[in-house]
């Protein structure tokens, strides 16, 4: 039986990598490896997961230096020479081992006004949104975000500017800016404009490169740049 050498981050913000030997299995995912360690080798290992099928967005970690969703990342894709290094997501405080504190990540969604501001009441009819309208197409492009934090951990601007809202929150704001049912467009554009918002993006595209759902937050942020610039020129901002 072949084994995999796994270096796993132990500790909080400061700590060290601990070596484990894990049996190699066919179709093994990185999450399988972490779960094996926690159940068979060291029950004190802290990590986070829920659905195991790429829906919930809770199992993202840094695998060989790259942020990935571990439940859908096969070991065969990332293990070089029978070794793999697994750490917590970057750009977030580490609580313990592989579990990060994601409060700031989600607080920034709220700061970017990432919730719908409804304009209709229960007495109104359903909104009819043509699927092929440009606004609906723009919203559809970004709507499948699972909030895993891979983009946020991969973003250079987040690392340099702690106030920056980040790719996920801005992508969410862009989907809502294209939602015809929403009534807070100008307030949201105001919330995502400027140094902490879309204008800080340098278009490095790490978020787009690494998003496991193949969303392009860079394109959403570019959309916000256009929309906020237009609003500023019209004097709405």
């Amino acid at each position, binding site marked *: 039986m072949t084994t995999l050498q796994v270096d796993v981050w132990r500790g909080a913000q400061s700590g060290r990598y601990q070596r484990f030997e894990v049996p190699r299995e066919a179709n093994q995912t990185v999450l399988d490896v972490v779960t094996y360690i926690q159940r068979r080798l060291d029950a004190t290992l802290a990590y986070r997961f829920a659905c195991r099928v790429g829906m919930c967005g809770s199992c993202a970690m840094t695998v060989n230096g790259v942020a990935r969703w571990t439940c859908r990342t096969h070991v065969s894709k990332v293990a070089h020479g029978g070794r793999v290094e697994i750490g917590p997501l970057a750009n977030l405080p580490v609580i313990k081992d592989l579990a990060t504190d994601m409060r700031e990540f989600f607080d920034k969604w709220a700061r970017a006004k990432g919730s719908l501001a409804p304009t209709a009441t229960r007495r109104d009819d359903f909104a009819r949104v043509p699927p092929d309208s440009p606004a609906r197409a723009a919203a559809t492009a970004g709507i499948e975000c699972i909030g895993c934090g891979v983009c946020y951990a991969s973003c250079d601007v987040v690392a340099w*500017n702690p106030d920056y809202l980040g790719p996920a929150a801005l992508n969410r704001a862009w989907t809502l800016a294209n939602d015809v049912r929403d009534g807070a467009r100008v307030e949201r554009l105001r919330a995502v404009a400027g140094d902490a918002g879309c204008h800080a993006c340098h278009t490095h595209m790490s978020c787009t490169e690494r998003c496991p759902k193949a969303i392009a937050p860079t394109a959403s942020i570019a959309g916000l740049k256009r929309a906020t610039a237009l609003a500023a020129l019209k004097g709405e901002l």
Partner: protein
Amino acid sequence: MTARTQTNLWIAQRASAAVLALCVVVHLVVIVYAMRGGLSAAEILGRTRGNFGWLAFYGVFVLAAAVHAPIGLRAIAMEWLGWRGRSLSIALHLVALALAVLGLRAVWAVFAP
């Protein structure tokens, strides 16, 4: 600084970048074209002195650079040096002023007879 002002800075930087892109291309093409058979300082001055076209072109070039560069430096100062606030704003206004004054002085020097 309000988000609106920050957005206006972004618009100013993009607009000045568009101007600079055109100016740099014209500038380089003219250099390569004019230098084919060699060129002396006296010949250059002979073409630029009293020429309002070149005065306007390089005047716009300098002003676009004076707008564009400080806004880019602002992002670098904030991200790499953690420098923010009033002192940064003052420093960047001085950079803009220096670029504009030194650049326009040079433009005037090759225009004035």
